[in-house]
């Protein structure tokens, strides 16, 4: 882990460069603002240009930030005394000998310098244990060598929030999937995940308040208790109660679980029962469906059920299968399903995992050929006694719920369209082998888009998207202000417009990764247009929630504010800014197709959003004109 963290520090120089450029840009802005004040039209143009520049610089900064560890000296309490990492030019035996001369070589890895990323990276990484009293002198000596990219103490890197579940430290799989960093922005509140499996047992490390009423498709009743253990383990990976001082953690700790029992005590069931459960889940408010099951037989009923759930806005996550070869199981292989293959702690395909062109993403499923603790650790039941026990399981069934939990976190952060969830997970996926710093060739049949990294996906949905929302909003505002000036309707920008624009565009969501969910303010990971869903439920979970989603993702609220502001001139700038910000959010949502709206076909939702964006912009344009200038 330390070695993997240290690899990332090779990008530090680039980050410093970007930060320096940013600082100088801001300074230039400050110097030039007084000159520009005299010419209002120029101010608007300069503001838009600088905002766009800022967006690009900050996006670049975030991209680099993914790979950064804090800079440290050996005096820093976060460093591990006597442990250093060294990035070297070229991969040679001489470097290993160098490591052996200065101490004990703990790791010697070959790295890949991506020629396309514009960053000159080391090709060899040594992790060496040295005499702590000599550490500074050794580092000094190493830094003088021309073939050394960097030499530094190894730093402990931890997420902002570490839960107090005593066995969390053994859950390598949650950390590999990026959950601890993701928990700073979202925890899955308000999202229901259907566990279509052997049922869920009410074990002590599952908060009963998060366990919804389910259905038993074997007996026809409501009792969906687990008599096998598989479903309880899977449910734990999705939403084990976390930070409760007991046992272990789960991917989306505040998500609700809907137990749908389709498999008996022997772990098997029928295609008809599974198809019925998929439809039931979609009709009863589940936003994510986890199917850690499968078989080799095609079933039209199940294929149609998957398509139905997808059309109702559900993310349908399925295990790829445990055949250990080519050939993905059903329902994972059906269109509309997210087929998940399994990897072990090093990010290498587990020997049992099925693969094929249908695989969309790989996630930790455990690889116990590396040892018992290389499995996935959750609470389950001992089926003979029904007592709660903590067990390491392995299988693609264990990989799928990591993706389901990740989907729940994204939904909670306002990405409600299943296609958008899937695209975000795919675009943020890491290279095969990345969990363990290994070098493995990309292979889309085995790994799909790559290895699950929910932290990266959430960073895009909060920080990166926020910059685009603000940029689009600012562009719309600049066009409107320029137009009003050309017509002689205004002389200067109405007071409060820009701050209100930032609020309407949800600029505060850039702060989400700093820990809004940690202090119970996870609504702040959403722009105002999507905030209602945080309090009333996601669209598709009920009529009222759906109606409010339609209203939120339209121009209704800025229109109401503008109508009020018409009679209160000092508020016009604020009303206009809010409307322009809102327009930026709506147009961005239409462009990235991130919002699911019930009833509307998926292609029509962006049309709704674009209409809303135009109306919001028009409202902003209208409200900035109090009267014609004399």
């Amino acid at each position: 882990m330390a070695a993997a963290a240290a690899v990332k520090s090779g990008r530090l120089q680039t980050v410093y460069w970007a930060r320096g450029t940013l600082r100088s840009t801001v300074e230039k802005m400050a110097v030039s603002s007084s000159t520009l004040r005299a010419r209002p039209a120029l101010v608007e143009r300069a503001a838009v240009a600088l905002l766009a520049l800022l967006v690009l610089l900050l996006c670049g900064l975030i991209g680099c930030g993914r790979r950064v560890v804090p800079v440290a000296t050996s005096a820093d309490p976060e460093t591990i005394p006597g442990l250093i990492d060294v990035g070297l030019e070229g991969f040679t035996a001489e470097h290993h000998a160098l490591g052996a001369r200065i101490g004990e070589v703990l790791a010697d890895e070959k790295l890949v310098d991506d020629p396309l990323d514009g960053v000159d990276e080391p090709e060899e990484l040594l992790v060496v244990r040295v005499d702590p009293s000599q550490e500074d002198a050794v580092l000094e000596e190493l830094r003088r060598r021309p073939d050394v990219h960097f030499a530094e103490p190894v730093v402990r890197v931890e997420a902002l929030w570490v839960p107090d579940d005593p066995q969390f430290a053994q859950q390598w799989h949650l950390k590999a999937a990026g959950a601890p960093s993701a928990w700073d922005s979202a925890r899955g509140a308000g999202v229901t995940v259907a566990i279509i499996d052997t049922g869920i047992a009410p074990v002590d490390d599952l908060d009963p308040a998060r366990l919804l009423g389910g259905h038993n498709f074997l007996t026809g009743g409501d009792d969906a208790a687990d008599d096998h253990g598989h479903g309880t383990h899977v449910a734990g990976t999705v939403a084990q109660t976390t930070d409760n001082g007991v046992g272990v953690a789960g991917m989306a700790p505040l998500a609700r679980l809907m137990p749908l029992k389709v498999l008996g005590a022997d772990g098997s069931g029928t295609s008809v029962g599974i198809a019925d459960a998929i439809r039931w889940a979609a009709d009863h408010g589940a936003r994510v469906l986890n199917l850690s099951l499968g078989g080799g037989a095609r079933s039209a009923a199940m294929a149609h059920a998957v398509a139905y759930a997808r059309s109702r806005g559900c993310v349908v996550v399925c295990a790829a299968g445990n055949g250990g070869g080519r050939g993905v199981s059903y329902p994972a292989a059906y269109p509309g399903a997210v087929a998940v293959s399994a990897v072990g702690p090093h990010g290498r395909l587990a020997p049992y995992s099925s693969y094929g062109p249908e695989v969309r993403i790989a996630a930790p499923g455990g690889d116990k050929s590396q040892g018992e603790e290389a499995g996935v650790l959750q609470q389950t039941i001992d089926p003979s006694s029904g007592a709660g026990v903590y067990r390491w399981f392995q299988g693609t069934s264990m990989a799928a719920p990591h993706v389901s939990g990740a989907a729940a976190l994204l939904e909670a952060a306002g990405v409600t369209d299943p296609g958008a969830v899937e695209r975000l997970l795919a675009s943020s996926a890491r290279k095969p082998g990345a969990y363990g710093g290994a070098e493995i060739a990309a292979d889309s049949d085995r790994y799909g888009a790559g290895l699950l990294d929910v932290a990266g996906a959430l960073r895009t949905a909060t920080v990166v998207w926020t910059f685009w929302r603000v940029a689009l909003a600012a562009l719309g505002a600049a066009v409107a202000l320029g137009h009003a000036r050309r017509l002689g309707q205004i002389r200067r920008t109405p007071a409060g417009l820009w701050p209100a624009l930032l609020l309407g565009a949800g600029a505060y969501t850039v702060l989400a990764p700093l820990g809004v969910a940690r202090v119970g303010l996870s609504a702040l990971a959403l722009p105002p247009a999507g905030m209602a869903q945080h309090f009333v439920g996601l669209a598709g979970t009920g009529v009222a929630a759906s109606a409010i989603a339609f209203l939120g993702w339209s121009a209704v609220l800025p229109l109401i504010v503008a109508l009020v502001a018409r009679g209160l001139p000092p508020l016009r700038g604020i009303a206009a800014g809010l409307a322009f910000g809102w327009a930026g959010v709506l147009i961005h949502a239409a462009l990235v197709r991130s919002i699911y709206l019930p009833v509307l076909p998926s292609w029509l939702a962006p049309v709704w959003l674009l209409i809303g964006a135009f109306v919001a912009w028009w409202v902003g344009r209208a409200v900035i004109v109090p009267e014609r200038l004399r």
Partner: protein
Amino acid sequence: MKLRGRLERRDLEGGIWQLVTDDGQRFTLVGSIPVKAGARVEVEGFVEEGFGIAMAGPQVRVTRMREV
């Protein structure tokens, strides 16, 4: 159908039973398994549609099993 082979308990999905036949085919077994893993057995049963947690080859519902 009748199958002969070696009974395996595989550490997958919390534990599944499989039969490896003499010609190397793998079948996932469900139902009552009264014999210990590693034994050579004769299984009577029928192939099911096979949806479940195992996802590792055709599934046979065991009606009778004996050591041979």
